[in-house]
């Protein structure tokens, strides 16, 4: 500290807190999109720090696909209770039941793209003008081009060729009626930064991230948890494996890694030597080379 330099984690923390405070100041109805994954847990932790000793001044929104890991839901409810923050749940099942969304069919059916409908419906119902999320630029090539303040038109669409320039720390959140923003306070964090910070700050995570035994199905090289949401194809069998998750999406599409890492130190060591990207196990990204870009344009997170 004596030579007036802060380390990279403190600098990233300071940047994220600055952005979160800007959101609270510039928008009328901001929300935090809470997926239950480590990045949104980190974001919630940063939001708590930003406003302490006051409570987080905006609600969390969780889009429940109905295909969540039970651990995710239990963790979410505990966290909300502890922080005394409001939780809004948008249900994909509801959107399917009332005909707003149509379920995919087939063995690889996923509710991933159906989330877009529920997300946009929920944002509209609560008149949300800024939805912040834990997406990071290092995750995926379309996300590498995201702004901190990402403008969405009245249809919730992203126009990557016409983004607002973002200079210094001056964030322009002005908008016309009906438009909203997605804001990404941890844009500049890498997977390693997230884990090191979780360790530094001693942040609680769902047990899914740590090594455990689970019944799994290996499909196209991806290890999926066996669950009621997955239909076995011919020749596939259920195997009990020692695994953990690097990201946390829906049960039928989130790939696990075989791992013995059951502590934060071991996880950090594992990531330092790993040779595949975090989203490498995400079936939703594998549908096309530009799968993420296409979904983002439609309003995906």
């Amino acid at each position, binding site marked *: *500290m004596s*030579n*007036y*330099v*802060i*380390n*990279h984690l*403190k*600098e*990233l*923390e*300071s*940047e994220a*807190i*600055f952005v979160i*405070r*800007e959101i*609270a*100041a510039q928008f009328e109805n901001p929300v935090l999109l809470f997926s239950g994954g480590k990045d949104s847990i980190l974001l919630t932790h940063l939001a708590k*720090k*930003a*406003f*302490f*000793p*006051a409570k987080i001044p905006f609600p969390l929104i969780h889009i429940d696909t109905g295909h969540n890991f039970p651990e995710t839901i239990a963790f979410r409810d505990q966290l909300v209770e502890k922080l005394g923050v409001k939780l809004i749940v948008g249900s994909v099942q509801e959107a399917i039941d009332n005909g707003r969304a149509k379920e995919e069919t087939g063995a690889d059916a996923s509710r991933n793209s159906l989330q877009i409908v529920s997300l946009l419906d929920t944002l509209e119902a609560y008149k949300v003008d800024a939805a912040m999320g834990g997406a990071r*630029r*290092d995750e995926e*090539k*379309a996300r*590498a*081009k995201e702004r901190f303040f990402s403008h969405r038109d009245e249809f919730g669409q992203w126009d*990557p*060729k016409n*983004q*607002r*320039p*973002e*200079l*210094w*720390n*001056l964030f*322009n959140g*002005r*908008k*016309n009626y009906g438009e909203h923003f997605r804001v990404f306070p941890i844009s*500049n964090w890498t997977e*390693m*930064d997230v884990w*090191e910070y979780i*360790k*530094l700050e001693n942040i609680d995570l769902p047990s899914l991230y740590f090594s455990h035994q689970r019944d799994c199905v290996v499909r196209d090289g991806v290890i999926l948890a066996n669950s009621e949401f997955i239909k076995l194809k011919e020749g596939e069998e259920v195997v009990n494996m020692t695994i953990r998750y690097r990201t946390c999406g829906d049960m039928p599409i989130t790939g696990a890694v075989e791992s013995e890492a059951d502590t934060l130190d071991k996880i*950090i060591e594992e990531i330092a030597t*790993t*040779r*595949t*990207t975090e989203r*490498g196990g995400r079936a939703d990204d594998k549908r096309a*080379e*530009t799968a993420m*870009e296409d979904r983002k344009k439609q309003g995906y997170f």
Partner: protein
Amino acid sequence: MKYQDIELLRFTTAGSVDDGKSTLIGRLLYDSKSIFQDQLDAVEASSKSKGFDYVDLSLLTDGLKSEREQGITIDVAYRYFATPKRKFIIADTPGHIQYTRNMVTGASTANLAIILIDARKGMLEQTHRHAFIASLLRIPHAIVCVNKMDLVDYSEDVYNGIVSDFKAFSSKLGISDIQFIPISALNGDNVVNRSENMDWYGGSTLMYHLETVHISSDHNLVDCRFPIQSVIRPHTLDNQDYRGFAGRIDGGVFKPGDKVKSLPSGFVSTIKTIELNGEQISEAFAPMSVTMTLEDEIDNSRGDMIVRENNVPLVSQDLEVLVTWMSTKPIQARTKVVIKHTTNESIGMVKELKYKIDINTLHRIEGIDKVEMNDIARLSIRTAKPLFYDAYKKNRQTGSIIIIDEQTNETIGAGMII
């Protein structure tokens, strides 16, 4: 844990399609082991399907569909890598003239600029542009990489010629710290590993420079500036009287017990605590986000600024700024705009267009009636309320503004206060 106590360095690279910028970035990522196997597999597969003989590392950095279709970069892309010594954020920006606005965007947050020159071609118009933008945005450090040395037989004469041409041009610019390195990004000479082909070069590699360049004095540590983002009032029984000012330090060093002045009110008080999440901080400096409490009850709000009593910024409604124009819609005198400065916002009027700068010759073009996309020009702006600012050369945060279109809400200009 080896990564925890390292510094963050943000740098920008600017270059055109052919000067090897993407290859250089690919090389830095690859040699620092920041490229994952599945990313490499994907790039190899697409190189093959396009019929290339080699793995095109530029496919790693071109993110959007339209970019890959056209083989160009249309926007700022951010890349990350770390070594045991530092974490790096690269703002990778395209170099052609129509993308000056992206270069400016990438440069605004950078500590360092890498300027690439093709050894076969020497200084080009766009080299002038890159160097000028680096100096305009006051990037504290620049590294000029003379690339493709393998294609000029690693010639010391060619290298020295380019270095002296660059120095002749840059003497007019005032970039304080410039380093020159002869490299071959394709073969890796002097990028991460020292070249065996250029014994005549006694300096260090690019990676060594990136890891060791002194950045702790890049922030202003003298002039205390704390723009208030919001006021924290918990309204709980435990904290009924708590009133904290949330914000990020833009300059100087603040300590509890310091006498401070609040702008615009002019009220003087003493810092009671500086904290974050309840933890007490003994010294706060840029770029730390903190919450500050004062001994006296002062009615500060967003946009106000806490400074030292005897070191105040300029306070005025009249600004002289150098702007980069970012909108396809030109601007003329007498246009009403919105100005964002620190956490403050004001209606403003562009009063006068003074001159444009030809960024290739650095000459002034006087007598202009409009400023167009990618122009760099000097404007006089009058704001509806006083702003508290410093000259951009003194403080990049309190000396910068963005200009917003009142009707469309788009960011249309980036300004540096003279």
